[in-house]
């Protein structure tokens, strides 16, 4: 009788195959992505009390208006966002206690408000005020 010797298939060691480490790595990436997606970032503003009054030196005021077409007006002249940023920087160097007062047209885009807040943050303006222009 002839005995046929069959070759036993080698067992694959799952732990050594590297599959588990791949799965663990993919899971880590998955959770990091999920965590990042659900975090809000932006600007944290502290609103003034309603009808509160603050006394400010008129000379420290820097008035900026945002028109309905989202153009920016500084001292009666149209300026770009960059020009405004430079003007705020120059003014703040002269007057560290300056107050940036922004009047926004009701039809101006929300992006305009965000841009104004960004300029105030960029130039470290401590006193910043915004309100809606009376229609």
């Amino acid at each position: 009788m002839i005995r046929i010797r069959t070759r036993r298939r080698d067992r694959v060691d799952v732990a050594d195959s590297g599959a588990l480490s791949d799965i663990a790595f993919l899971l880590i990436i998955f959770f990091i992505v999920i965590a990042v997606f659900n975090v809000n970032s932006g600007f944290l503003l502290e609103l003034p009390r309603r009808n509160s009054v603050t006394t400010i030196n008129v000379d420290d005021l820097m008035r900026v208006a945002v028109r309905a077409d989202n153009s920016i007006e500084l001292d009666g002249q149209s300026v770009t966002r960059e020009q405004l940023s430079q003007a705020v920087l120059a003014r703040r160097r002269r007057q560290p206690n300056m107050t940036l007062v922004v009047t926004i047209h009701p039809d101006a885009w929300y992006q305009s408000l965000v841009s104004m807040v960004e300029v105030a943050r960029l130039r470290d303006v401590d006193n910043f005020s915004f309100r809606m222009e009376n229609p």
Partner: protein
Amino acid sequence: MRIRRPRRSPTVSVNAMSDIAFLLLIFIMLISLLNYREEEPIDYPEAALTEITQGDRNFEIWILRDGTMIVHGNALPLNAIEGMIADAVAADPSVRIHLLADRSTPYRHVADVIEVLQFLQHRVVSLVVSDTGGAR
């Protein structure tokens, strides 16, 4: 005389892998549910120098381009949102209010919400924007 000892290589039972995969699937689904957020289709405003404004408890007010205000997936009038904010603040005064408005939303709609927050004496608000990653 050489005694031949049968060699046994250590193995991990492959049958258990399906159990592990199934448990992982359930785990991931649960985590996804915990992180579930009702995202509205808005075009975020863009800015640099942003900060993480996420709080321990958050209350999100979505404002669409046409002025529609959405809270917890429901379009609501401003007075209803005012009541919801009041309830949320009463339940937890440290709740963080987030404004998520489309970049082209007319400012008057955003101003309405800000006025409500001031009226409710809730003075801290987060303007959520998309970070462009600009430097000083």
